[in-house]
């Protein structure tokens, strides 16, 4: 294969096909039946998946590392040369596969899940648009194209969280997600400006080359840019301090949570750091910040996950926590591991969410036929006999999340911690801290995972709603999706070695993977594996069979109870935020409304007509209807222009 034979043009088709699906579905959603709409909605991502496979195989056999397809030259303004271009390299190819693959499965699942919803067509339109935008984000050749995708997925996330917009709470959750994201996006935008200011280009390749040429004097600027980008990433990927929106985002349909708020969109920040690895491997300070923030987020979210009652909230906090792991890996420079964890996480978290969706769907209110919307795990229980398919697929995802071998989560999480331990020179170094926090998180992960499994599938049924076995058997699409994803989370770990060699060209020749010594590896493995097994058994025992006892213990012991309450109420961060940020902002808005809007703006708005009235009165004399007056006035204008021209000529340096 040579340069000319690579099917470059097809790259554009990857984002284009779902976009086409979006257009078709949104235009025809009132005309077509649900079945056709579902087919149409799934066709875009599925075809894109096929194209992505084809291109990935082509790229594998292609001598060059990356291929760029320039759609057209977009902005040409002085220094700024931007084109709407897509780059396919191993990293973006992998992400494309994940997005279109997992996306397609979730689309198929949605056919069953959204069956009968009156917004069926709208849902698939949004979902297709999201897929398209995510692919733009991933394939973008430069920062601005990436930013288009970045904003596009944010928009779709907003639309889908507030999908049931008649519910006020859900609308508010959507707004919260949007506003919080905006804070991050603002930093990201400033980062883009600064990057252009410093590098003179915005294409990733150009930035890579510019960094290679740059003097160390500019290191602080590199760090600043990297941190700005990371702030953007904290918004999109729900890291401290901008994680607040993700738990609320669970208001959307569950497949949306699976696709957007677990598998793809929230990993955009991780992908961005991978894409800018050239920047982050130089900006060591920023990398340390990334690692520490990631580790802190991981532990912090995990502790909150332990006490949640809502099945989706638990999974949401676990997502934040896992994202923390990814950032930890990225911050430590283990880019391959971070991306690998992203991939496996996409598999098992999607499986878990879809499983959760199936569980929610399985509970039907006795008096009415449709899903009760039950999400409280305390009211579930003993589900495994009734819904074995959900149970087994959920187990596969859950074991993977808890990083038990041989599930895929183990293969991606264990090396991250091992790398941190290997790199740790002293206990109080960044890497040491990261390892310590990561290990604690791993145990917490095990706890909340097994608590979840025990509460949902074991023990006695505690709720007043019944399980409708026919319901999930009826929707083959949901079952199919669950099986596919659970198989992926079971066997996804096998990709490890393939992936590290496949992705190597992306990080550049200067990047080396850390060799983990045998002793570190064994110590890490036995510590985590052993700890995990112990915690798993204990948690499972307590929550499956001694649930009433543990509730009583917590309630009676004030220390336990306060810990529990603190964690359950999410450390009151939302309330503190309300008090410290939202309230003053509201007060400021009121003041602005009173002083700026009523006084200044209204004054200007009312004053302008008066001004124009006076001006018109004064200028009426000029408009006397005589051609000569007009010509003379035109001439006066020309003379003024000429005067300036003459001035510049006479006083020009030439």
């Amino acid at each position, binding site marked *: 294969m040579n340069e000319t034979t690579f099917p470059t043009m097809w790259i554009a088709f990857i984002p284009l096909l779902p976009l086409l699906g979006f257009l078709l579905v949104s235009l025809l959603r009132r005309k077509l039946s649900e079945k056709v709409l579902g087919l149409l909605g799934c066709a875009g991502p599925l075809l894109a998946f096929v194209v992505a496979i084809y291109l990935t195989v082509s790229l594998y056999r292609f001598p060059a590392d990356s291929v760029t397809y320039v759609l057209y030259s977009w902005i040409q303004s002085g220094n700024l040369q931007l084109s709407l271009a897509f780059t396919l390299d191993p990293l973006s190819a992998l992400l494309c596969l994940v997005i279109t693959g997992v996306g397609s499965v979730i689309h198929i699942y949605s056919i069953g899940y959204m069956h009968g919803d009156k917004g069926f067509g709208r849902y698939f339109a949004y979902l297709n648009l999201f897929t398209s935008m995510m692919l733009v984000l991933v394939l973008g050749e430069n920062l601005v194209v990436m930013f288009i995708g970045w904003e596009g997925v944010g928009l779709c996330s907003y639309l889908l969280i507030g999908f049931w917009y008649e519910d006020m709470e859900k609308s508010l959750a959507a707004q919260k997600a949007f506003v919080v994201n905006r804070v991050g996006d603002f930093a990201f935008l400033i980062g883009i400006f600064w990057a252009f200011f410093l590098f003179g280009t915005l294409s990733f390749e150009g930035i890579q080359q510019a960094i290679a040429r740059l003097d160390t004097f500019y290191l602080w600027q590199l760090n600043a840019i990297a941190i700005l980008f990371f702030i953007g990433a904290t918004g999109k990927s729900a890291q401290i301090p901008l994680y607040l929106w993700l738990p609320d985002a669970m208001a959307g349909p569950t497949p949306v949570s699976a696709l957007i708020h677990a598998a793809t969109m929230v990993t955009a920040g991780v992908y961005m750091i991978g894409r800018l690895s050239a920047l982050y491997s130089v900006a060591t300070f920023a990398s340390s910040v990334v690692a520490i923030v990631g580790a802190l987020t991981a532990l912090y979210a995990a502790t909150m996950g332990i006490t949640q009652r809502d099945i989706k909230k638990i999974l949401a906090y676990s997502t934040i926590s896992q994202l923390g792991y990814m950032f930890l890996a990225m911050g430590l420079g283990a880019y391959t591991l971070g991306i690998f964890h992203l991939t496996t996480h996409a598999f098992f978290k999607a499986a878990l969410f879809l499983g959760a969706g199936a569980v929610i769907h399985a509970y039907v209110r006795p008096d009415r036929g449709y899903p009760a919307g039950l999400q409280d795990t305390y009211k579930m229980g003993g589900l495994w006999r009734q819904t074995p398919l959900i149970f087994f697929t959920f187990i596969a995802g859950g074991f993977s999340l808890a990083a038990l071998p041989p599930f895929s989560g183990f293969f991606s999480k264990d090396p991250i911690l091992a790398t941190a331990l290997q790199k740790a020179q002293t206990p109080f170094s960044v890497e040491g801290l990261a390892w310590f926090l990561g290990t604690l998180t791993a145990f917490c992960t095990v706890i909340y995972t097994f608590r979840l499994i025990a509460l949902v599938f074991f023990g006695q049924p505690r709720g007043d709603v019944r399980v409708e076995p026919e319901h999930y058997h009826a929707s083959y699409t949901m079952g199919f999706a669950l099986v596919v994803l659970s198989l992926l989370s079971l066997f996804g770990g096998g990709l490890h070695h393939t992936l590290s060699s496949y992705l190597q060209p992306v990080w550049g020749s200067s990047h080396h993977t850390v060799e983990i010594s045998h002793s570190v590896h064994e110590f890490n493995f036995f510590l985590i594996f052993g700890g995990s097994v112990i915690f798993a058994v204990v948690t499972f025992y307590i929550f499956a069979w001694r649930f009433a006892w543990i509730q009583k213990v917590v309630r009676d012991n004030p220390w336990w109870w306060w810990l529990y309450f603190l964690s359950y109420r999410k450390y009151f961060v939302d309330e503190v935020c309300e008090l410290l940020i939202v309230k003053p902002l509201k007060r400021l808005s009121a003041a602005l409304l009173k002083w700026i809007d009523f006084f200044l703006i209204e004054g200007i708005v009312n004053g302008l007509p008066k001004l124009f009235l006076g001006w018109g009165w004064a200028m009426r004399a000029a408009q006397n209807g005589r051609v*000569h007056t007009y010509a003379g006035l035109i*001439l006066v204008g020309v003379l003024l222009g000429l005067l300036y021209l003459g001035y510049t000529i006479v006083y020009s340096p030439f």
Partner: protein
Amino acid sequence: MSPNFLLYIGAALFSIGTFGVLSCRNTLILLMSIEIMLTGVSLSLVTFSWIWANSAGQIFVIFIMAVAAGEAAIGLAIIMAFYRLHKSVQTDKAELMKG
């Protein structure tokens, strides 16, 4: 003699045309003054074309001629219509648009 002389001539013609536009009450002469202005510009363009041995100036003059021909046709048609309405070609009769 330097061809700059001809540029001065062009500027002078343009200014004379401007004077005509500003001062003539007769619309016909007013239109003629506009033609003079255009021709002044044409002269400058042809001079530049000669100075730089470049065809662009002369090509532009041809376009100016096309515009001038159209402008003359339309302008004279307007004068005819105006004359039919007001029985005059004096500009000060055209005051309907005053504010």
